[in-house]
């Protein structure tokens, strides 16, 4: 009996020690969304259950091994006991009650995390091997709606945002540890578009990273997220919605950045995935079928709208998305070509 009292005391002490450690040590990253607040609360409940059950079994096992260990030279067997049906029923029923309760509060937590705010702003997120692109719809003067495309996800603080997730190729996953949520991004068009709701509550810079393996550069598929206050967000959006009033080359650079071209095409001569744009314009390239072409406006235009038409030796068909014809305007394509031509 005295053994049971000691063990009970040790279990309580261990539970408190482990529980306090788990709930106070910064196990989780910065908390930057309303969803994170709720989720972290559920984590805390889990930590206490983990502390208790881990302590319960570990203390019994370790105590038994130390105290009931066979002394050197000792013979004979342990105490003969077969089991206790009442005890078995107790340790079946009590865990059932606990897990059912956990499931109830788990469902409740999920409902809070996924609560829909009718005021939420919508951003379309396009994932592709291996970049992210974000598209906003903005009402500009005259009531027309303009699309703003950005390689950075800019979000207003304390405002729910509805992300509509689209993939151009394989399955990706939108994951921001500071927001505590993730959602897989599926290819296949409208039917497979999935949604994720986030309410950032902390200004700062974060990163979205792909969490579902998507090939070679999966590890590097990331984009910046900026959470700013509402007025700053609105002025950024208006600024982006305006026409590009820079020179064609500078506008081209802007589109190349926003639409993710630079994830695969470097500007300094190194080969990332596709050919570098440095010194590309005007050069001669050998194609995979053995013929040779000179890089000019027509060739670049074709390579943007129909990337598989001509493949330079050493590169592969099918890697570059074939959807740019529908995404970029003719003017934007001309400006990107002008930008490439300027990189001599």
């Amino acid at each position, binding site marked *: 009996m005295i053994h049971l009292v000691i063990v009970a005391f040790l279990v309580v002490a261990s539970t408190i020690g482990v529980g306090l450690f788990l709930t106070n040590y910064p196990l989780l990253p910065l908390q930057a969304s309303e969803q994170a607040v709720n989720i972290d609360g559920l984590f805390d409940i889990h930590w206490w259950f983990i502390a208790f059950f881990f302590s319960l079994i570990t203390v019994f096992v370790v105590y038994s091994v130390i105290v009931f260990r066979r002394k050197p030279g000792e013979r004979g067997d342990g105490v003969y006991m077969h*089991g206790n049906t009442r005890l078995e029923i107790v340790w079946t029923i009590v865990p059932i009650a606990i897990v059912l309760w956990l499931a109830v509060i788990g469902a409740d937590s999920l409902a809070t995390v996924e609560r829909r705010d009718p005021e939420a702003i919508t951003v379309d997120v396009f994932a592709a091997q291996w970049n992210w692109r974000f598209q906003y719809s903005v009402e500009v003067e005259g009531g027309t709606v303009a699309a703003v495309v950005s390689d950075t996800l800019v979000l207003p603080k304390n405002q729910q945002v509805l992300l509509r997730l689209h993939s151009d190729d394989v399955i990706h996953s939108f994951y921001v540890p500071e927001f505590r949520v*993730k959602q897989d991004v599926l290819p296949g068009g409208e039917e497979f578009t999935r949604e994720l709701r986030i309410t950032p509550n902390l200004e700062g810079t974060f990163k979205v990273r792909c969490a579902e393996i998507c090939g070679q550069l999966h590890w590097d598929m990331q984009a910046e997220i900026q959470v700013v206050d509402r007025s700053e967000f609105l002025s950024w959006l208006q600024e982006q919605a305006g026409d590009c009033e820079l020179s064609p080359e500078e506008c081209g650079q802007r589109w190349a950045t926003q639409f993710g071209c630079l994830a695969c095409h470097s500007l300094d001569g190194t080969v990332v995935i596709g050919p570098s744009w440095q010194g590309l314009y005007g050069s001669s390239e050998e194609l995979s079928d053995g013929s040779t072409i000179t890089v000019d406006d027509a060739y670049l235009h074709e390579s943007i709208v129909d990337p598989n038409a001509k493949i330079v030796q050493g590169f592969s068909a099918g890697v570059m998305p074939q959807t740019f014809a529908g995404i970029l305007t003719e003017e934007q394509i001309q400006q990107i070509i002008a930008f490439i031509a300027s990189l001599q």
Partner: protein
Amino acid sequence: MRFFSTGLFRGLVAQVAGSVVGMAFVMAARVLMGEPAWSREPVIVGGMIIGALAFLVGVGSFNDWFKWARGKQVSDEITVDPNKPSWMRYFSVDYDHKVIGIQYGVVSMLLLLFGGTFAMFFRTELATAGIDFLNNEIFKVLLGYEPGPVGLLSGGAMMPNPEHFFNSLMSLHGIVMIAGILLGVGAMSNYLVPMLIGANDMAFPRLNSFAFWVNVPGALILLSSLLFGGFDTGWVGYPPLALRAPLGMQMFLFGVYLIGISSIAGAINVIVTILTMRAKGMTMMKMPIFAWAALATAVLQFSATQLIGLTFQLVMLERLLGMPFFDATAGGDPILYQHLFWFYSHPAVYVFILPGLGIISELLPVFARKPLYGYKWVAFSSFGIALISFFVWAHHMFVSGMSPYLRIPFMYSTLLVAVPTGVKFFSWAGTLWQGKIKLATPMLFVLGSIIIFLLGGVTGPPAATISTDLHIHDTYFVVGHFHDTMFGGFIFPIIAAIYYWFPKMTGRMYSERLGKWHFWLMFPAFMLLSNGMLLLGLQGMRRRVVAYDADLGFGPLHVALTIAGFVIFFSMILFAINIIRSARKGPEAKDNVWDSRSPEWQIASPAPLHNYAQPFEVVGEPYDYGLQNSPYVNMTPAGGSATASH
């Protein structure tokens, strides 16, 4: 050069020849259809399939069945040719369940060695934030050629680049370990079940031998994936990525397919053997507890494995013939694959751990010198776990984009798994309580299993409640949780089982000193490894990445994990040295090394060719340690004088 007269050698020659014939066959068919003869993927896949069949013919798995088909008689008697060295039995078709069990065990350990070696490569890479180890120079040293700017889709046989090489090693680590674990499960079931229940062999010895040998071409094909460009999808192989991966993907799919056939055939055997071949007086409730675990495992393998075979077959067909089952742009559905995949792969996880949990329950009473606490509850909890495991698969898909409401019932069912698992833990603690505990090496590994599996258990619920899973899904938290369940539920128990039954297999003792070194290196190193993984995951470290941002601060922990990984690897080398050396030179073992009540310890060590010279009778309970004059088995029921333990 007796090796050249073994079945294994004949099988390998036949596999090479069969592959050539298969390739020629596909090329001929293509020419007849008016296509160019050479097309890399279909031709090589055709060779691969015919080659695997040819291996089985060459090794001799079908010999008796061919004879039956021709109306000839075959002998059911297992005979051993005294003119051949005994090791040759292990390299050819043999129907003795003990030989087959050891064949399974050796191939299992080889696969675990491959899987572990892959892990050492990418664990080294992960010690630094950037791509510093598997860079272009090392890549050249390891593979002998320079990576070029080839895209993933070139279909080239070569690894296009170091990142892809990392992804392939990581994917292969997962699936090769799983193959090794499945064979380890086969090893335990085949070696132990007949001996524990008093049978002299399995119900269907030929099927048993076939079930082992089909793994050999399966494992070879799986490993050959590295020579065909690897695959970068992780072991889950989700399309559409799996449709774009290099040819090595097909080796993954077909290799697993063959190993799945082994699971199904082996499971039928275990079920029938346990249900029909028990000794006189051995009711189900008097079976050694491992037999219950083996039975629950076999029911799972027998009823779930078809799903993975079918699913991988669909992906192979989609790649080969363009049938768009999973390509969303052509009317397929990528989510469907995930449902089909996990409908097997979740129960499969219980296939991996149930035998190990059975080993824990089997060994604890022997070393605590006490009855197994709540035998009936432990036995039924295995079936409880097996049953629930069929209703939880979609908890792998909480962020996959399946119907959001469907997640709720899966959260409930998943959390319920904790109940029968908890019953096992409480029973183990009850068994230890007030025992007379002997800390021999097998017992150390059993105790290690309990603590590690406990960690795996308590880290499950945060992944089961959906909203917390939104954070930890696809992070190192899940990786840590899974390694806890695999090490606690399989690796540590099978090591305990190998040490424990080593005298029965070889007639010799292992080195207790090396065994203790093994444990005291491996256990702390693994605790560091898995807890480090759990912590990294909580902090947002994604799984399946070759590099990570240095400013996230993960660096020091990753260095520690890499060191821990190498310590585990080194301790396993000690294990191998111990086993190999002791099998040849170890001191001779007593018949009943552990003072066990179990029937296999009442016969000679090593176990004779036909286990039991005459049938024994069960006259008591299996684990009545501490109760005087209560034998479990009467080895000579006709003679009258009981020679059972105690």
